[in-house]
Protein backbone atom coordinates (compact mmCIF):
# COMPACT_ATOMS: atom_id res chain seq x y z
CA UNK A 1 0.00 0.00 0.00
CA UNK A 2 1.65 3.27 -1.07
CA UNK A 3 1.67 5.81 1.74
CA UNK A 4 2.61 9.44 2.03
CA UNK A 5 4.66 8.68 5.13
CA UNK A 6 7.01 6.29 3.32
CA UNK A 7 7.39 8.71 0.41
CA UNK A 8 8.22 11.52 2.81
CA UNK A 9 10.82 9.44 4.66
CA UNK A 10 12.52 8.42 1.40
CA UNK A 11 12.58 11.99 0.12
CA UNK A 12 14.05 13.31 3.39
CA UNK A 13 16.84 10.72 3.13
CA UNK A 14 17.52 11.67 -0.47
CA UNK A 15 17.47 15.35 0.49
CA UNK A 16 20.16 14.72 3.11
CA UNK A 17 22.19 12.78 0.55
CA UNK A 18 21.81 15.69 -1.89
CA UNK A 19 23.15 18.15 0.69
CA UNK A 20 26.05 15.81 1.44
CA UNK A 21 26.94 15.50 -2.24
CA UNK A 22 26.88 19.29 -2.63
CA UNK A 23 29.05 19.70 0.48
CA UNK A 24 31.61 17.31 -0.97
CA UNK A 25 31.53 19.15 -4.29
CA UNK A 26 32.29 22.42 -2.47
CA UNK A 27 35.07 20.94 -0.32
CA UNK A 28 36.95 18.82 -2.86
CA UNK A 29 39.44 20.10 -5.39
CA UNK A 30 43.00 21.36 -5.75
CA UNK A 31 42.30 23.65 -2.81
CA UNK A 32 40.97 21.06 -0.35
CA UNK A 33 38.77 22.59 2.33
CA UNK A 34 37.29 21.27 5.56
CA UNK A 35 33.49 21.33 5.91
CA UNK A 36 33.86 24.07 8.52
CA UNK A 37 35.91 26.16 6.08
CA UNK A 38 33.30 25.58 3.36
CA UNK A 39 30.56 26.71 5.71
CA UNK A 40 32.49 29.82 6.68
CA UNK A 41 33.21 30.65 3.05
CA UNK A 42 29.52 30.25 2.18
CA UNK A 43 28.66 32.71 4.95
CA UNK A 44 31.22 35.13 3.53
CA UNK A 45 33.66 34.79 6.40
CA UNK A 46 37.27 33.64 6.74
CA UNK A 47 39.89 33.20 4.08
CA UNK A 48 39.39 35.38 0.99
CA UNK A 49 40.76 32.79 -1.43
CA UNK A 50 38.49 30.07 0.00
CA UNK A 51 35.50 32.41 -0.38
CA UNK A 52 36.44 33.11 -3.98
CA UNK A 53 36.86 29.41 -4.81
CA UNK A 54 33.73 28.20 -3.02
CA UNK A 55 31.31 30.96 -3.92
CA UNK A 56 32.72 32.02 -7.25
CA UNK A 57 33.74 28.71 -8.80
CA UNK A 58 32.56 25.58 -7.03
CA UNK A 59 29.05 26.57 -5.92
CA UNK A 60 27.74 27.64 -9.36
CA UNK A 61 29.27 24.59 -10.99
CA UNK A 62 27.97 22.15 -8.35
CA UNK A 63 24.50 23.66 -8.51
CA UNK A 64 24.52 23.53 -12.31
CA UNK A 65 25.48 19.86 -12.20
CA UNK A 66 22.82 19.14 -9.57
CA UNK A 67 20.09 21.00 -11.45
CA UNK A 68 20.92 19.41 -14.79
CA UNK A 69 21.13 15.92 -13.30
CA UNK A 70 17.70 16.47 -11.76
CA UNK A 71 16.31 17.84 -15.03
CA UNK A 72 17.60 14.90 -17.06
CA UNK A 73 16.37 12.27 -14.59
CA UNK A 74 12.94 13.90 -14.35
CA UNK A 75 12.69 14.26 -18.13
CA UNK A 76 13.73 10.62 -18.55
CA UNK A 77 11.09 9.42 -16.10
CA UNK A 78 8.43 11.45 -17.92
CA UNK A 79 9.52 10.19 -21.35
CA UNK A 80 9.32 6.60 -20.11
CA UNK A 81 5.70 7.14 -19.08
CA UNK A 82 4.85 9.04 -22.27
CA UNK A 83 6.26 6.32 -24.51
CA UNK A 84 5.36 3.50 -22.09
CA UNK A 85 8.82 2.21 -22.72
CA UNK A 86 11.35 1.62 -19.93
CA UNK A 87 14.14 2.11 -22.48
CA UNK A 88 13.15 5.67 -23.38
CA UNK A 89 15.47 8.46 -22.29
CA UNK A 90 15.31 12.26 -22.64
CA UNK A 91 17.27 12.13 -25.89
CA UNK A 92 15.20 9.50 -27.66
CA UNK A 93 13.02 12.09 -29.42
CA UNK A 94 15.95 13.96 -30.94
CA UNK A 95 16.10 16.90 -28.55
CA UNK A 96 19.77 16.49 -27.69
CA UNK A 97 20.53 15.95 -31.37
CA UNK A 98 18.92 19.26 -32.21
CA UNK A 99 20.79 20.97 -29.38
CA UNK A 100 24.08 19.46 -30.54
CA UNK A 101 23.53 20.70 -34.09
CA UNK A 102 22.85 24.19 -32.76
CA UNK A 103 25.79 24.25 -30.36
CA UNK A 104 28.32 22.81 -32.79
CA UNK A 105 27.17 25.15 -35.54
CA UNK A 106 27.72 28.03 -33.15
CA UNK A 107 31.22 26.79 -32.32
CA UNK A 108 32.06 26.13 -35.95
CA UNK A 109 30.87 29.54 -37.10
CA UNK A 110 32.76 31.07 -34.22
CA UNK A 111 29.75 32.67 -32.60
CA UNK A 112 32.05 32.58 -29.59
CA UNK A 113 31.28 33.18 -25.97
CA UNK A 114 29.18 30.63 -24.21
CA UNK A 115 26.00 32.68 -24.40
CA UNK A 116 25.87 32.36 -28.19
CA UNK A 117 26.47 28.63 -27.99
CA UNK A 118 23.74 28.22 -25.38
CA UNK A 119 21.24 30.25 -27.34
CA UNK A 120 21.94 28.20 -30.45
CA UNK A 121 21.76 24.91 -28.52
CA UNK A 122 18.40 25.86 -27.03
CA UNK A 123 17.10 26.96 -30.43
CA UNK A 124 18.28 23.66 -31.92
CA UNK A 125 16.57 21.64 -29.16
CA UNK A 126 13.28 23.52 -29.58
CA UNK A 127 13.54 23.15 -33.35
CA UNK A 128 13.95 19.37 -33.09
CA UNK A 129 11.10 19.16 -30.56
CA UNK A 130 8.68 21.10 -32.79
CA UNK A 131 9.76 19.13 -35.85
CA UNK A 132 9.14 15.77 -34.18
CA UNK A 133 5.88 16.94 -32.66
CA UNK A 134 4.65 18.38 -35.95
CA UNK A 135 5.52 15.28 -37.96
CA UNK A 136 4.30 12.71 -35.44
CA UNK A 137 1.17 14.61 -34.51
CA UNK A 138 0.32 15.58 -38.08
CA UNK A 139 -2.85 13.52 -38.39
CA UNK A 140 -4.07 14.36 -34.89
CA UNK A 141 -3.46 10.89 -33.50
CA UNK A 142 -0.95 10.03 -30.82
CA UNK A 143 0.68 6.80 -31.70
CA UNK A 144 3.64 6.00 -29.48
CA UNK A 145 5.33 4.00 -32.21
CA UNK A 146 4.98 6.88 -34.65
CA UNK A 147 6.30 9.40 -32.15
CA UNK A 148 9.24 7.16 -31.27
CA UNK A 149 10.12 6.46 -34.91
CA UNK A 150 9.91 10.12 -35.87
CA UNK A 151 12.15 11.02 -32.93
CA UNK A 152 14.69 8.33 -33.74
CA UNK A 153 14.85 9.41 -37.39
CA UNK A 154 15.23 13.10 -36.53
CA UNK A 155 17.95 12.16 -34.01
CA UNK A 156 19.71 10.16 -36.73
CA UNK A 157 19.56 13.16 -39.06
CA UNK A 158 21.02 15.36 -36.33
CA UNK A 159 23.75 12.78 -35.74
CA UNK A 160 24.71 12.96 -39.39
CA UNK A 161 24.79 16.76 -39.26
CA UNK A 162 26.99 16.60 -36.15
CA UNK A 163 29.39 14.16 -37.85
CA UNK A 164 29.53 16.44 -40.88
CA UNK A 165 30.39 19.46 -38.75
CA UNK A 166 33.02 17.52 -36.83
CA UNK A 167 34.70 16.43 -40.03
CA UNK A 168 34.70 19.99 -41.38
CA UNK A 169 35.85 21.59 -38.13
CA UNK A 170 39.38 22.95 -37.88
CA UNK A 171 41.75 21.10 -35.53
CA UNK A 172 41.75 23.67 -32.71
CA UNK A 173 37.97 23.65 -32.33
CA UNK A 174 37.58 19.88 -32.27
CA UNK A 175 38.40 19.37 -28.58
CA UNK A 176 35.81 21.89 -27.40
CA UNK A 177 33.19 20.37 -29.70
CA UNK A 178 33.90 16.83 -28.51
CA UNK A 179 33.73 17.88 -24.86
CA UNK A 180 30.40 19.57 -25.49
CA UNK A 181 29.08 16.39 -27.09
CA UNK A 182 30.18 14.23 -24.17
CA UNK A 183 28.75 16.60 -21.60
CA UNK A 184 30.85 19.04 -19.65
CA UNK A 185 29.95 21.25 -16.71
CA UNK A 186 33.12 23.34 -16.63
CA UNK A 187 31.64 26.04 -18.85
CA UNK A 188 28.13 25.84 -17.47
CA UNK A 189 26.38 29.19 -17.20
CA UNK A 190 24.75 30.42 -13.97
CA UNK A 191 22.61 27.60 -12.56
CA UNK A 192 19.62 29.64 -11.37
CA UNK A 193 17.38 29.25 -14.41
CA UNK A 194 17.99 25.48 -14.41
CA UNK A 195 17.23 25.21 -10.68
CA UNK A 196 14.00 27.17 -11.01
CA UNK A 197 12.96 25.12 -14.01
CA UNK A 198 13.68 21.92 -12.10
CA UNK A 199 11.46 23.07 -9.27
CA UNK A 200 8.70 24.25 -11.61
CA UNK A 201 8.91 21.08 -13.69
CA UNK A 202 8.71 18.88 -10.62
CA UNK A 203 5.66 20.72 -9.25
CA UNK A 204 3.93 20.46 -12.65
CA UNK A 205 4.74 16.76 -12.92
CA UNK A 206 3.50 16.09 -9.37
CA UNK A 207 0.26 17.88 -10.22
CA UNK A 208 -0.39 15.04 -12.71
CA UNK A 209 1.41 12.28 -10.80
CA UNK A 210 -1.53 9.93 -10.15
CA UNK A 211 -2.74 10.39 -13.73
CA UNK A 212 0.77 9.45 -14.88
CA UNK A 213 0.46 6.24 -12.86
CA UNK A 214 -2.59 5.41 -14.95
CA UNK A 215 -1.04 6.47 -18.26
CA UNK A 216 1.90 4.16 -17.53
CA UNK A 217 -0.65 1.33 -17.63
CA UNK A 218 -1.84 2.34 -21.07
CA UNK A 219 -3.96 5.07 -22.62
CA UNK A 220 -7.23 3.03 -22.65
CA UNK A 221 -6.93 2.24 -18.92
CA UNK A 222 -6.25 5.90 -18.16
CA UNK A 223 -9.17 7.02 -20.32
CA UNK A 224 -11.67 4.66 -18.67
CA UNK A 225 -10.60 5.93 -15.25
CA UNK A 226 -11.26 9.56 -16.12
CA UNK A 227 -7.94 10.90 -17.44
CA UNK A 228 -7.92 13.38 -20.31
CA UNK A 229 -5.25 11.43 -22.17
CA UNK A 230 -4.62 13.78 -25.09
CA UNK A 231 -4.10 16.78 -22.81
CA UNK A 232 -1.87 14.82 -20.44
CA UNK A 233 0.33 13.57 -23.28
CA UNK A 234 0.71 17.10 -24.64
CA UNK A 235 1.73 18.40 -21.21
CA UNK A 236 4.19 15.52 -20.77
CA UNK A 237 5.77 15.98 -24.16
CA UNK A 238 6.36 19.70 -23.82
CA UNK A 239 7.45 19.51 -20.20
CA UNK A 240 9.98 16.71 -20.80
CA UNK A 241 11.28 18.50 -23.89
CA UNK A 242 11.72 21.81 -22.08
CA UNK A 243 13.54 20.15 -19.17
CA UNK A 244 15.84 18.28 -21.54
CA UNK A 245 16.56 21.33 -23.68
CA UNK A 246 17.50 23.34 -20.59
CA UNK A 247 19.81 20.64 -19.24
CA UNK A 248 21.52 20.07 -22.58
CA UNK A 249 21.97 23.80 -23.06
CA UNK A 250 23.72 24.06 -19.70
CA UNK A 251 26.07 21.08 -19.74
CA UNK A 252 25.83 19.37 -23.13
CA UNK A 253 24.43 15.91 -23.78
CA UNK A 254 25.38 14.06 -20.63
CA UNK A 255 24.34 10.48 -21.19
CA UNK A 256 22.93 7.78 -18.92
CA UNK A 257 21.50 10.02 -16.17
CA UNK A 258 18.12 10.29 -17.88
CA UNK A 259 17.92 6.58 -18.61
CA UNK A 260 19.53 4.98 -15.59
CA UNK A 261 18.37 7.14 -12.69
CA UNK A 262 14.62 6.55 -13.27
CA UNK A 263 15.42 2.84 -13.54
CA UNK A 264 17.45 2.78 -10.34
CA UNK A 265 14.68 4.56 -8.49
CA UNK A 266 12.05 2.24 -9.95
CA UNK A 267 14.03 -0.84 -8.96
CA UNK A 268 14.48 0.47 -5.44
CA UNK A 269 11.15 2.18 -4.75
CA UNK A 270 8.57 0.95 -7.26
CA UNK A 271 6.80 2.76 -10.07
CA UNK A 272 4.46 5.08 -8.15
CA UNK A 273 5.11 8.38 -9.95
CA UNK A 274 4.21 10.39 -6.84
CA UNK A 275 7.41 9.08 -5.25
CA UNK A 276 9.40 8.17 -8.35
CA UNK A 277 9.40 11.65 -9.91
CA UNK A 278 10.77 13.65 -6.95
CA UNK A 279 13.09 10.79 -5.96
CA UNK A 280 14.46 10.57 -9.51
CA UNK A 281 15.01 14.34 -9.62
CA UNK A 282 16.99 14.24 -6.36
CA UNK A 283 18.92 11.09 -7.28
CA UNK A 284 19.77 12.50 -10.72
CA UNK A 285 21.06 15.67 -9.09
CA UNK A 286 23.15 13.66 -6.63
CA UNK A 287 24.61 11.43 -9.35
CA UNK A 288 25.64 14.30 -11.59
CA UNK A 289 27.06 16.34 -8.68
CA UNK A 290 29.21 13.38 -7.62
CA UNK A 291 30.23 12.63 -11.20
CA UNK A 292 31.18 16.24 -11.91
CA UNK A 293 33.22 16.51 -8.72
CA UNK A 294 35.06 13.32 -9.64
CA UNK A 295 35.50 14.60 -13.19
CA UNK A 296 37.42 17.63 -12.02
CA UNK A 297 39.39 15.98 -9.19
CA UNK A 298 40.24 12.43 -10.17
CA UNK A 299 43.13 13.29 -12.50
CA UNK A 300 43.46 16.98 -11.57
CA UNK A 301 44.54 19.33 -12.95
CA UNK A 302 43.22 17.51 -16.05
CA UNK A 303 39.40 17.52 -16.35
CA UNK A 304 37.32 14.68 -17.69
CA UNK A 305 34.02 15.17 -19.51
CA UNK A 306 31.34 14.44 -16.91
CA UNK A 307 29.28 12.37 -19.36
CA UNK A 308 32.03 9.75 -19.41
CA UNK A 309 31.93 9.47 -15.63
CA UNK A 310 28.13 9.22 -15.37
CA UNK A 311 28.37 6.22 -17.64
CA UNK A 312 31.30 4.74 -15.70
CA UNK A 313 29.42 5.08 -12.40
CA UNK A 314 25.96 4.33 -13.71
CA UNK A 315 26.58 1.20 -15.73
CA UNK A 316 28.05 -1.06 -12.98
CA UNK A 317 25.52 0.13 -10.39
CA UNK A 318 22.72 -0.58 -12.79
CA UNK A 319 24.01 -4.00 -13.76
CA UNK A 320 24.39 -4.90 -10.09
CA UNK A 321 20.79 -3.96 -9.33
CA UNK A 322 19.53 -5.78 -12.39
CA UNK A 323 21.45 -8.94 -11.52
CA UNK A 324 19.89 -9.22 -8.07
CA UNK A 325 17.29 -11.93 -7.91
CA UNK A 326 13.96 -10.60 -9.23
CA UNK A 327 11.71 -9.93 -6.29
CA UNK A 328 8.39 -11.72 -6.28
CA UNK A 329 6.98 -9.64 -3.48
CA UNK A 330 7.18 -6.10 -2.35
CA UNK A 331 6.18 -4.98 1.11
Amino acid at each position, binding site marked *: *MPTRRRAFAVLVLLGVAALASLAWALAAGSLALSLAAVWQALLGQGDGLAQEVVRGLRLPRALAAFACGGLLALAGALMQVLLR*NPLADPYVLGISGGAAVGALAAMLLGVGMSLGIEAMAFAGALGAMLLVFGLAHGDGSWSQARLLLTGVIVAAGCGAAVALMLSLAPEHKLRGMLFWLMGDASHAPAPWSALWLLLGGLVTALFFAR*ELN*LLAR*GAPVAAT*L*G*VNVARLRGVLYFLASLLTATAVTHIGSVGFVGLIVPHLVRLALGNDQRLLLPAAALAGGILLTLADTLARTVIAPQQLPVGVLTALIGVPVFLFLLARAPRM*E*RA
Partner: protein
Amino acid sequence: MTAPLLSAKGLAVSIAGKPVVHGLDLVLRPGDCLAILGRNGAGKTTLLHTLAGLRAPEAGTLTLDGASYAEQGPRRAARARGLLLQHQGDAFPASVLETVLIGRHPHLSRFAWEDEADGRIAREALAAVDLAELAQREVHTLSGGERQRVALAALLAQQPKLYLLDEPLAHLDLNHQLAMLDLFARLAQDRGVAVAMVLHDPNLALRFCNRALLLHGDGTHALGDSAEQLDAARLSKLYGHPLRMLQDGARRWFIPE
Protein backbone atom coordinates in the same frame (compact mmCIF):
# COMPACT_ATOMS: atom_id res chain seq x y z
CA MET B 1 -39.70 1.92 -13.48
CA THR B 2 -36.29 3.00 -12.27
CA ALA B 3 -34.28 5.61 -14.16
CA PRO B 4 -31.98 4.13 -16.82
CA LEU B 5 -28.23 3.96 -16.14
CA LEU B 6 -27.46 3.91 -19.83
CA SER B 7 -29.67 5.06 -22.65
CA ALA B 8 -28.77 4.95 -26.35
CA LYS B 9 -31.14 6.23 -29.02
CA GLY B 10 -30.62 5.71 -32.73
CA LEU B 11 -26.99 4.83 -32.12
CA ALA B 12 -24.84 4.23 -35.21
CA VAL B 13 -21.32 2.87 -34.85
CA SER B 14 -18.88 1.85 -37.53
CA ILE B 15 -15.23 0.99 -37.66
CA ALA B 16 -13.03 1.80 -40.66
CA GLY B 17 -16.14 2.30 -42.81
CA LYS B 18 -17.67 -1.04 -41.81
CA PRO B 19 -20.98 -0.69 -39.98
CA VAL B 20 -21.26 -2.28 -36.53
CA VAL B 21 -24.77 -1.17 -35.61
CA HIS B 22 -27.20 1.45 -36.81
CA GLY B 23 -30.39 2.57 -35.19
CA LEU B 24 -29.58 0.85 -31.89
CA ASP B 25 -32.01 1.78 -29.10
CA LEU B 26 -30.63 0.35 -25.89
CA VAL B 27 -31.68 1.09 -22.31
CA LEU B 28 -29.92 -0.49 -19.34
CA ARG B 29 -31.57 -0.16 -15.92
CA PRO B 30 -30.36 -1.24 -12.49
CA GLY B 31 -30.50 -5.02 -12.33
CA ASP B 32 -30.08 -5.51 -16.07
CA CYS B 33 -27.51 -7.95 -17.36
CA LEU B 34 -26.92 -7.79 -21.10
CA ALA B 35 -24.94 -10.33 -23.11
CA ILE B 36 -23.38 -9.08 -26.35
CA LEU B 37 -22.73 -11.90 -28.81
CA GLY B 38 -21.33 -12.00 -32.29
CA ARG B 39 -18.55 -13.38 -34.43
CA ASN B 40 -14.93 -12.21 -34.25
CA GLY B 41 -14.66 -8.79 -35.85
CA ALA B 42 -18.40 -8.07 -35.63
CA GLY B 43 -17.62 -4.94 -33.62
CA LYS B 44 -18.45 -6.03 -30.07
CA THR B 45 -15.42 -4.26 -28.58
CA THR B 46 -15.99 -1.15 -30.69
CA LEU B 47 -19.60 -0.97 -29.54
CA LEU B 48 -18.58 -1.47 -25.91
CA HIS B 49 -15.97 1.32 -26.16
CA THR B 50 -18.60 3.58 -27.69
CA LEU B 51 -20.99 2.84 -24.82
CA ALA B 52 -18.10 3.62 -22.43
CA GLY B 53 -17.60 7.02 -24.05
CA LEU B 54 -14.11 6.28 -25.35
CA ARG B 55 -15.10 6.89 -28.97
CA ALA B 56 -17.88 9.02 -30.37
CA PRO B 57 -20.84 7.36 -32.14
CA GLU B 58 -21.48 8.18 -35.78
CA ALA B 59 -25.05 9.16 -35.01
CA GLY B 60 -27.53 9.00 -32.20
CA THR B 61 -27.50 10.09 -28.58
CA LEU B 62 -25.99 8.39 -25.58
CA THR B 63 -26.58 9.25 -21.94
CA LEU B 64 -24.96 7.77 -18.86
CA ASP B 65 -26.90 8.19 -15.63
CA GLY B 66 -28.99 10.94 -17.25
CA ALA B 67 -26.21 13.03 -18.80
CA SER B 68 -24.12 12.78 -21.96
CA TYR B 69 -20.40 12.03 -21.70
CA ALA B 70 -19.54 15.53 -22.87
CA GLU B 71 -21.75 17.06 -20.17
CA GLN B 72 -20.33 15.12 -17.26
CA GLY B 73 -16.67 14.95 -18.25
CA PRO B 74 -14.33 11.98 -17.94
CA ARG B 75 -13.94 12.02 -14.16
CA ARG B 76 -17.62 11.89 -13.25
CA ALA B 77 -18.18 9.33 -15.98
CA ALA B 78 -15.44 7.17 -14.41
CA ARG B 79 -17.40 7.07 -11.17
CA ALA B 80 -20.55 5.97 -13.00
CA ARG B 81 -19.26 3.37 -15.45
CA GLY B 82 -16.32 1.00 -15.53
CA LEU B 83 -14.86 -0.80 -18.54
CA LEU B 84 -12.93 -4.05 -18.48
CA LEU B 85 -10.48 -3.93 -21.38
CA GLN B 86 -9.71 -6.98 -23.46
CA HIS B 87 -5.94 -6.66 -23.02
CA GLN B 88 -4.09 -6.00 -19.78
CA GLY B 89 -0.68 -4.54 -20.55
CA ASP B 90 1.99 -4.02 -17.89
CA ALA B 91 4.92 -2.02 -19.21
CA PHE B 92 6.24 -1.35 -15.72
CA PRO B 93 6.41 -3.47 -12.57
CA ALA B 94 3.67 -3.09 -9.93
CA SER B 95 2.19 -5.16 -7.14
CA VAL B 96 -1.26 -6.70 -7.37
CA LEU B 97 -2.62 -4.41 -4.64
CA GLU B 98 -1.23 -1.30 -6.39
CA THR B 99 -2.86 -2.44 -9.61
CA VAL B 100 -6.24 -2.87 -7.94
CA LEU B 101 -5.93 0.51 -6.21
CA ILE B 102 -5.91 2.31 -9.59
CA GLY B 103 -9.66 1.70 -9.58
CA ARG B 104 -9.92 4.24 -6.76
CA HIS B 105 -8.50 7.04 -8.91
CA PRO B 106 -11.81 8.69 -9.90
CA HIS B 107 -12.85 8.80 -6.24
CA LEU B 108 -9.72 10.61 -5.01
CA SER B 109 -8.99 14.33 -5.23
CA ARG B 110 -5.90 15.41 -7.14
CA PHE B 111 -3.30 15.34 -4.38
CA ALA B 112 -4.93 12.68 -2.18
CA TRP B 113 -3.26 9.34 -1.50
CA GLU B 114 -5.21 6.13 -1.07
CA ASP B 115 -6.25 5.84 2.58
CA GLU B 116 -7.22 2.88 4.77
CA ALA B 117 -10.76 2.84 3.39
CA ASP B 118 -9.45 2.58 -0.18
CA GLY B 119 -7.10 -0.18 0.91
CA ARG B 120 -10.02 -2.05 2.45
CA ILE B 121 -12.11 -1.70 -0.71
CA ALA B 122 -9.20 -2.99 -2.80
CA ARG B 123 -8.62 -5.97 -0.49
CA GLU B 124 -12.33 -6.82 -0.53
CA ALA B 125 -12.26 -6.68 -4.32
CA LEU B 126 -9.28 -9.04 -4.36
CA ALA B 127 -11.09 -11.38 -1.99
CA ALA B 128 -14.16 -11.30 -4.26
CA VAL B 129 -12.08 -12.58 -7.17
CA ASP B 130 -10.33 -15.15 -4.97
CA LEU B 131 -6.91 -13.48 -5.01
CA ALA B 132 -6.67 -12.17 -1.44
CA GLU B 133 -3.43 -14.01 -0.71
CA LEU B 134 -1.65 -12.65 -3.81
CA ALA B 135 -1.99 -8.95 -2.87
CA GLN B 136 1.78 -8.39 -2.59
CA ARG B 137 2.78 -10.31 -5.72
CA GLU B 138 4.21 -8.55 -8.77
CA VAL B 139 1.59 -8.54 -11.54
CA HIS B 140 3.99 -9.81 -14.19
CA THR B 141 4.51 -13.01 -12.19
CA LEU B 142 0.81 -13.91 -12.45
CA SER B 143 -0.75 -16.37 -14.86
CA GLY B 144 -3.09 -15.10 -17.56
CA GLY B 145 -6.21 -16.05 -15.61
CA GLU B 146 -4.91 -14.48 -12.41
CA ARG B 147 -4.02 -11.28 -14.29
CA GLN B 148 -7.56 -11.19 -15.71
CA ARG B 149 -9.00 -11.49 -12.20
CA VAL B 150 -6.74 -8.63 -11.02
CA ALA B 151 -8.27 -6.48 -13.76
CA LEU B 152 -11.76 -7.52 -12.59
CA ALA B 153 -10.79 -6.63 -9.01
CA ALA B 154 -9.59 -3.18 -10.13
CA LEU B 155 -12.97 -2.72 -11.79
CA LEU B 156 -14.80 -3.77 -8.61
CA ALA B 157 -12.69 -1.29 -6.61
CA GLN B 158 -13.84 1.42 -9.02
CA GLN B 159 -17.40 0.75 -7.80
CA PRO B 160 -19.28 1.96 -10.88
CA LYS B 161 -23.02 1.61 -11.37
CA LEU B 162 -22.59 0.33 -14.91
CA TYR B 163 -20.12 -2.44 -15.70
CA LEU B 164 -19.02 -2.84 -19.32
CA LEU B 165 -17.05 -6.07 -19.63
CA ASP B 166 -15.08 -7.03 -22.73
CA GLU B 167 -14.63 -10.81 -22.61
CA PRO B 168 -14.59 -11.04 -18.81
CA LEU B 169 -14.05 -14.81 -18.98
CA ALA B 170 -10.88 -14.68 -21.10
CA HIS B 171 -8.14 -16.96 -19.68
CA LEU B 172 -10.35 -18.02 -16.74
CA ASP B 173 -10.71 -21.66 -15.70
CA LEU B 174 -14.19 -23.18 -15.51
CA ASN B 175 -14.85 -22.60 -11.80
CA HIS B 176 -13.71 -18.98 -11.98
CA GLN B 177 -15.80 -18.38 -15.11
CA LEU B 178 -18.89 -19.37 -13.17
CA ALA B 179 -17.76 -17.55 -10.01
CA MET B 180 -17.22 -14.28 -11.91
CA LEU B 181 -20.56 -14.47 -13.73
CA ASP B 182 -22.26 -15.28 -10.46
CA LEU B 183 -20.52 -12.30 -8.84
CA PHE B 184 -21.77 -9.86 -11.48
CA ALA B 185 -25.26 -11.39 -11.52
CA ARG B 186 -25.46 -10.88 -7.73
CA LEU B 187 -24.16 -7.30 -8.05
CA ALA B 188 -26.96 -6.63 -10.55
CA GLN B 189 -29.60 -8.24 -8.35
CA ASP B 190 -28.57 -7.01 -4.91
CA ARG B 191 -26.71 -3.76 -5.51
CA GLY B 192 -28.75 -2.42 -8.43
CA VAL B 193 -25.88 -2.15 -10.89
CA ALA B 194 -26.23 -2.86 -14.61
CA VAL B 195 -23.87 -5.11 -16.56
CA ALA B 196 -23.18 -5.41 -20.28
CA MET B 197 -20.68 -8.06 -21.29
CA VAL B 198 -19.20 -9.59 -24.38
CA LEU B 199 -19.54 -13.36 -24.16
CA HIS B 200 -18.71 -16.18 -26.52
CA ASP B 201 -20.73 -18.89 -24.79
CA PRO B 202 -24.50 -18.70 -25.46
CA ASN B 203 -25.15 -21.16 -22.61
CA LEU B 204 -23.57 -18.86 -20.04
CA ALA B 205 -25.34 -15.90 -21.64
CA LEU B 206 -28.67 -17.66 -21.27
CA ARG B 207 -27.96 -18.70 -17.70
CA PHE B 208 -26.70 -15.39 -16.30
CA CYS B 209 -28.09 -12.59 -18.50
CA ASN B 210 -31.68 -11.42 -18.74
CA ARG B 211 -31.08 -9.66 -22.06
CA ALA B 212 -29.08 -10.34 -25.19
CA LEU B 213 -27.78 -8.26 -28.09
CA LEU B 214 -26.74 -10.16 -31.19
CA LEU B 215 -24.40 -8.38 -33.62
CA HIS B 216 -24.55 -9.92 -37.08
CA GLY B 217 -21.47 -8.17 -38.41
CA ASP B 218 -23.26 -6.41 -41.29
CA GLY B 219 -24.65 -3.56 -39.23
CA THR B 220 -27.87 -5.35 -38.29
CA HIS B 221 -28.60 -6.48 -34.77
CA ALA B 222 -31.23 -8.22 -32.64
CA LEU B 223 -31.98 -7.11 -29.10
CA GLY B 224 -34.36 -8.54 -26.56
CA ASP B 225 -34.88 -10.90 -23.64
CA SER B 226 -32.17 -13.53 -23.65
CA ALA B 227 -34.70 -16.37 -23.32
CA GLU B 228 -36.35 -15.26 -26.52
CA GLN B 229 -33.27 -14.10 -28.49
CA LEU B 230 -31.17 -17.16 -27.80
CA ASP B 231 -32.58 -20.04 -29.79
CA ALA B 232 -30.96 -22.61 -32.04
CA ALA B 233 -32.04 -20.97 -35.30
CA ARG B 234 -30.85 -17.47 -34.44
CA LEU B 235 -27.57 -18.66 -32.93
CA SER B 236 -26.87 -20.91 -35.92
CA LYS B 237 -27.34 -17.90 -38.18
CA LEU B 238 -25.25 -15.67 -35.90
CA TYR B 239 -22.22 -17.95 -35.84
CA GLY B 240 -22.67 -19.50 -39.28
CA HIS B 241 -22.48 -22.95 -37.75
CA PRO B 242 -25.44 -25.21 -36.94
CA LEU B 243 -26.27 -25.48 -33.24
CA ARG B 244 -28.68 -27.87 -31.61
CA MET B 245 -30.72 -27.19 -28.47
CA LEU B 246 -30.94 -29.69 -25.62
CA GLN B 247 -33.59 -29.26 -22.96
CA ASP B 248 -33.86 -30.54 -19.42
CA GLY B 249 -36.95 -29.17 -17.71
CA ALA B 250 -36.73 -25.39 -17.85
CA ARG B 251 -33.02 -25.33 -18.69
CA ARG B 252 -31.66 -25.23 -22.22
CA TRP B 253 -28.22 -25.80 -23.74
CA PHE B 254 -26.83 -25.21 -27.18
CA ILE B 255 -24.21 -27.52 -28.58
CA PRO B 256 -22.49 -27.20 -31.94
CA GLU B 257 -23.34 -29.96 -34.41
